[in-house]
């Protein structure tokens, strides 16, 4: 991706991308080092890299702080989300901008290094009816009148580690004494089924003491 460009600025984002450990200052340095190792390994690269991290990439005012950092680079490799990449592109019309992160979903960290998808930003929110549990993102099929026949012991047939969203919804409605919401039929909704990863884990399971050779 970067091969056509000689001077590359790796640009981090100090807000969401830092929180989800994808494009904060530490990841920027890490990618910087990794690219340099890769170049040293191949032995024929001629790139020069620089790095900088903005507080936020998705607002033009923050981008002004880049100043002359971009004056002597050929491209910006943005570790912002898709919004950040586009914001940089918009602010600097003559500068090619590359996405350094493949933004997958909006989620939350259940524990350190484990993120679960929670919102599809679908613009058609049903959380009031589903007891605050989103069936669009948390049900593999994204169905509105669940559960389907594939639920087993409260788990999804597609992934035995994943809770069935509709079982969760049922249990919570029961607790809230709102089970009548289950009995309603929800009409068709306008959405396309997009295959989603549902979960990204940056943690490696290691057994302490085991030889890792």
């Amino acid at each position, binding site marked *: 991706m970067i091969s056509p460009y000689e001077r590359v600025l790796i640009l981090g984002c*100090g*807000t*969401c991308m*830092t*929180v*989800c*450990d994808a494009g*904060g*200052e*530490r*990841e920027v*340095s*890490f990618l910087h*080092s*990794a690219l*340099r*190792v*890769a170049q*040293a*390994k*191949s032995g024929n690269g001629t790139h020069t890299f620089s790095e900088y*991290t903005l*507080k936020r990439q998705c607002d033009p005012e923050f981008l*002004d*702080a880049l*100043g*002359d*950092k971009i*004056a002597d680079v050929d491209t910006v490799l943005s570790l912002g989300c898709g919004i950040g990449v586009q914001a940089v592109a918009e602010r600097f019309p003559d500068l090619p901008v590359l996405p350094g992160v493949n933004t997958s979903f909006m989620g939350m*960290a259940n*524990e*350190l290094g484990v993120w679960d998808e929670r919102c599809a930003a679908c613009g058609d929110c049903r959380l009031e009816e589903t007891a605050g549990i989103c069936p669009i993102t948390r049900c593999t099929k994204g169905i509105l009148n669940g559960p389907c026949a594939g639920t087993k012991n409260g788990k999804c047939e597609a992934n035995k580690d994943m809770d069935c969203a509709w079982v969760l919804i049922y249990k919570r409605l029961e607790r809230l004494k709102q089970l009548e919401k289950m009995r309603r039929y929800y009409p068709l909704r306008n959405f396309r089924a997009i295959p989603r990863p549902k979960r990204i884990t*940056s*943690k*490696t399971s*290691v057994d*302490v*003491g085991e030889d*890792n*050779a």
Partner: protein
Amino acid sequence: MDSPVTDDTQDYRDRQTMKLSVDRSLMPPCQAACPLHMEIREYVDLVAQGRIMEALQVIRSGNPFPSICAYVCTHPCEDACRRCQVDNPIAIRALKRFALEFGGDRMVQSEAETTHGEKVAIVGSGPAGLACAYYLRKLGYPATVFEAHSELGGMLRVGIPQYRLPRKVLDTEVQRLTQMGVEIRTNTRVVSLDLLFEMGYKAVFVTIGAHQSLRMEIEGEESPGVIDGATFLREVNLGLKPSLGKRVAVVGGGNVAIDAARTALRLGAHKVSILYRRSREEMPADHAEVEQALEEGIDIRFLEAPTRISRENGRLSVTCVRMELGEPDASGRRRPTPIKDSEFHKEFDTLITAIGQAPQTPVDFGVRTGRGSTIQVDTVTLTTNRAGVFAGGDAVTGPATVTDALAAGRLAASRIDDYLQHRYPLDSKAGRESLTGDLQPETLEMIRKTGRLEPPILPPGARRRDFKAVELIYDWEAAINEARRCLRCGMGAEILFQDKCATCLTCLRVCPYHVPYLDASGTIQIPDDQCQACGICVAECPAKAIVLRKPYDRRHIDEELDHILKSAAQSNFKPLIIGFCCQYGLFGTGALAGLWRGAKASIWIVPVLCAAKVEADHMLRAFEMGAEGVFIAGCGEQCARENTDFWVRQRVEKVRRILAQIGLEPERLQAFVSTTNGGDPAEELDRFAERLGNLYLASIVMQEVKS
């Protein structure tokens, strides 16, 4: 583009860099408790790393006579040590002694140049006087020490028994003073200060100690066979052998009483008893000394006091009374009161009184004295009522510790300097912020409990025979393990760049000690008095907002890598392997020393203070520098911190994934852990080097095939 924004950005970066170079560590409780404010945490940490020579330097810079303190200091630092809350305090004094012995303190030479003309007289050669002479010479003043006895040292010489402070040690320090050009006049009792001024001295430091024993004020105190503790110890220490008879009693509960009793035992007394009017709890004597006295067979009789002494048939008949404890008195200890009709008689050959001492200031000195005949001084300037006359040590405070006296001597030297240079004396107390506060239960719970390792001592049977030093020295391994128990108070992590913090909660989640917390405003706080300085959050913070409080800790891995880059470029050995090795365990105990000598590669070691401080980025940087292989060696089960091994492996896996993407074999990066059961790290490393050697050869062959 020359916009004001750019200048701002540059400014901001500069300020950040500047912030990073500032030492923001807090003063730990041990240092705050030390009368000399020695950098205890620093030298204990250096001992833990096996860097004994550097530890010695730190010790020497903060103490004029560390070898003396290493034997006799009452270590208030250990009482203040926060490890007390976990298990027992660090054995700081014993570690200092280890550092002095193994660091070669005896070889250290002291030098001083005379840069000032004003001569200073020091009256008395106790610890305060000697310390004052030492620092005056360092400041460039000619100094003369006047001593009434035949040898220097004051109480160090005539008060403290040899089994606690070998005279060789004292002689070495005195020798150094002579080397520095201190003029010494022994057998010279100063009777008038006017004479000193007439002789051309511009300032006088009066430090005559507190040698006069207090009287018990009971009938028969003047009988032959009754002797006061200070006189008794002085006679023994100056080489006399007073005949004591078989049964000896010592009255008192302080260190002098214990010293007198143990000395009497060593002079051949069959039975030595100590009569103390309160109970064990109130005893002002050092706990370990009391313990050792009991081991040696000294009988300590609590709640007993003599009321009358009479001499019959060459023996002392002592009438005693039993006591009980009432309400606390002014000193905070419970006041003893006699129990009615509890009198009883005991027979002794000798009775030694050791119930306290006071200074005896010649009236001709013309200095104002106060409570307990102590000399009155201004506590900040140490000046007396006479111009140019300063005073310090026991003569001012009443009987106190050697370290207090050394501190008084040092302060006096700088005050005399101020006086002679006509400077306004500055209050030296202004300085770093002190760390206070107890450890929280949830933090306390996570700290590994490792009991204190005491240095070996001579068995009681061997001690009773002569005046040999009772306490022996740690061996290398014991000292390092003891030093590693230090909690490193006040040098932990802090969010230095609050503006960068995205409140991602990573620090809160990775901390093994549950230290960071979210305050009511939603800001992360890392309380400085709880942090254990393991460095895990520093390496994990995605915003790089957290740093360690000491600049050295922040930089040193980068600096070591730079150093290797320069040195390795000049060496032709191939393949290059870079190892990040825990300096605490492997280096310190020497297990690592054999590692790279025998290996079949050019191995460069980056010593790190805990493998958990090695960031993923550091590992990549090592590869970038041209390393064929990189390894991280942690101390594993020995580690004094929690979870460090887990985080090393997390980062290793992260870097391995990147290596695979780049096209480098992931096995070029390895983590070794020293375990107590099997698995020799040296052998593992050898195998690692061999594998890398093969990879290296293969790559050369590949290149040749290509060309």
